[in-house]
């Protein structure tokens, strides 16, 4: 059968596109590579999750048969360098931390605000905050955000549908630190039910939030909001374990559908009027490249977020086990930092699991094993907190996704090959933010603070973005201001691939807002 639209991927972007199209009466086929997973399928395994994936993770993609190349080295989905994101119905939104930030208005105008550093591909977005404003609001209300007043650095907005989570014990300390420094602060907005909402329960404040599925389904992703809406409409078919290998084209080059492998391992195809890609910045670029679509910019300017994270040891225990755990933030340093390009949001973090603390937060001077290590764990775990946040990355064209000429996946499709390192300005901004985070912890009573030193590397990970950037010039971008691929009037991209830059914030609400906008405009012009 011929569909009106095929949506490839069911994460933050794809789920919303499918819902809006189906509710507008279009016949929609959603092809999701991963499986449908719930709390029972994603164990609370501290060694296999999206925060600690050394031996695997609770979601897809499957460990075997899905290789990538990272700077020439072949890697599996749970290994360093792969830049994995959950592959399942709902994508990353099943297991994310769910911070629901809007980008700052200046995040859309980085080149105008700061100039373009040599060797970078820094550019303004072709749309502005005002263009996304009402779609941010739709994402906040239709997916479901809990939070308080907007930060004073942000434009005013409609209140969220749910009240903010209360401050934790550590947030109260950090609040006192802000007061001392004269910094403004707020509760980070979360796509999590702070109260019973939309027929689902309130958060139980458990200790396993980011990286895990929610035990009471209080975390709002596409899998429990817009995808059910799409299915209820009667206009949407969702095929999971359906892996799209390439896009189909007519002899004239028009996109006519997709070729895919279904859950039984059969090769099949589906045709449609419109195709919407939402596989994440790495897989969308790979699919475009393997389909020989989109021109020379496809796959370039791959970016994510550097994180400026500082550990602090307080005098007295502050661990209260009150999840999700991220509870206070400041937007004092997203912009306006003297001599620095951009900046980022800073916040405390989700509850640090013991094994993560043992492996990632040992300061210099503490031996890596023995009684002294055991004593350190025992004496400091409940006194520890971390603050930090995502740095607005300065992109470079040669940070990129290519397709391998030698390594293929289990279906014979050329694997994604990732290469490049970020621009040095990203590292400079990170160092600046490490100083601010240190300052915050000290003002909040930390006896000791410490952090790692940032170097040049490729950053993509769960916040991957930028590989099919939006722009008006087809020579310098992949999609137009409607996220329609230049030269293809029926091919759209509804994920973070289109981000020109990735903001100094967790990007998911922007992905959602953009998908609302792209799909809304597609329907109106259909």
């Amino acid at each position, binding site marked *: 059968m011929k569909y009106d639209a095929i949506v490839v991927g069911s994460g933050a972007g794809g789920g919303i596109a499918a819902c809006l199209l189906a509710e507008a009466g279009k016949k929609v086929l959603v092809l999701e590579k991963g499986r449908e997973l719930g709390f029972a399928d994603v*164990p*609370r*395994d*501290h*060694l296999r999750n999206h925060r600690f994936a*050394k*031996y695997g993770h609770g979601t897809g993609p499957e460990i075997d048969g899905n290789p990538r190349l990272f700077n020439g080295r072949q890697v599996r989905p749970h290994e360093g360098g792969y830049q994995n994101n959950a592959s399942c119905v709902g994508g990353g939104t099943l297991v994310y931390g769910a911070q629901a930030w809007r980008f700052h208005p200046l995040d859309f105008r980085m080149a105008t605000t700061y100039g373009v550093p040599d060797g970078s591909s820094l550019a303004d977005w072709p749309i502005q905050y005002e263009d996304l404003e009402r779609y941010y609001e739709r994402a906040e209300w239709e997916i479901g955000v809990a939070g308080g007043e907007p930060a004073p650095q942000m434009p005013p907005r409609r209140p969220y549908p749910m009240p903010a989570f209360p401050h934790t014990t550590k947030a109260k300390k950090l609040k006192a630190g802000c007061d001392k420094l004269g910094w403004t602060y707020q509760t980070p907005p979360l796509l999590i039910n702070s109260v019973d909402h939309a027929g689902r329960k309130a958060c*139980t*404040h*458990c*200790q*396993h939030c980011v990286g895990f599925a929610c*035990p009471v389904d209080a975390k709002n992703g596409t899998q429990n909001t817009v995808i059910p809406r799409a299915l209820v409409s009667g206009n949407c078919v969702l095929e999971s374990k359906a892996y799209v290998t390439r896009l189909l084209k007519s002899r004239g080059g028009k996109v006519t559908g997709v070729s895919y492998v279904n859950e039984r391992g059969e090769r099949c195809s589906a045709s449609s009027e419109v195709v919407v890609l939402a596989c994440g910045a790495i897989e969308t670029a790979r699919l475009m490249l393997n389909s020989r679509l989109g021109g020379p910019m496809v796959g370039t300017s791959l970016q994510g977020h550097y994180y400026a994270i500082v550990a602090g040891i307080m005098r007295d*225990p502050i*661990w209260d*086990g009150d*999840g999700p755990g991220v509870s206070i933030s400041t937007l004092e340093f997203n912009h306006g930092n003297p001599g620095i390009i951009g900046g980022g949001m800073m916040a405390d973090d989700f509850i640090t*699991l*013991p*094994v993560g*603390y*043992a*492996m990632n937060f040992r300061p210099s001077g503490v031996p*890596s*094993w*023995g*009684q002294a*290590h*055991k004593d350190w*764990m*025992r004496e400091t*775990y*409940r006194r520890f907190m971390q603050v930090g946040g995502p740095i607005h990355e300065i992109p470079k064209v040669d940070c990129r996704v290519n397709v391998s000429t030698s390594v293929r996946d289990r279906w014979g499709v050329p694997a994604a090959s990732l290469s490049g390192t970020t621009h040095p300005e990203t590292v400079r901004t990170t160092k600046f933010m490490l100083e601010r985070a240190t300052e915050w912890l000290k003002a909040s009573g930390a006896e000791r603070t410490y952090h790692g030193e940032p170097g040049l590397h490729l950053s993509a990970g769960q916040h991957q973005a930028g590989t099919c950037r939006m722009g008006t010039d087809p020579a310098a971008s992949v999609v137009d201001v409607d996220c329609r691929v230049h030269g293809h009037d029926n091919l759209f991209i509804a994920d973070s691939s289109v981000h020109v830059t990735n903001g100094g914030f967790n990007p998911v609400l922007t992905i959602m807002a953009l998908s609302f906008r792209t799909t809304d405009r597609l329907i109106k012009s259909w």
Partner: protein
Amino acid sequence: MQSLSESQVHTLRAVVDRIIPKDDYPSASEAGCVEFLLHLIEQESLVDSYRIGLDGVEAYSHGTAFADLSAHQQDEVLESLAKKPRSRKFITLVARQTMEGYYSDPGNGANRGGRAWEMIGFKVTA
């Protein structure tokens, strides 16, 4: 792939108990780390690295079985091996994987009764 010999397991038990010694909370082996490691290294194809590494520990124990040395002597052996280019990698590996077992969820088998979590004050409430 051959699994560890009985004597290699004996050495491993003594090694992990210096990585996380017993005090008023369990040692690594009491918490289940040996069984955890035997399973993990098979899964991760690390058996050979462990065989070679553990034989290296014995070779450095000056004719006495490593397990029969005093705790102080055992620490000296491990510290010396941690400084040598050829054995450094193994000491780092076994220390890291022992910690991973001891401090992770009891479901992984090396944090019996959740005692490590009780020790540091981590609680699961929901």
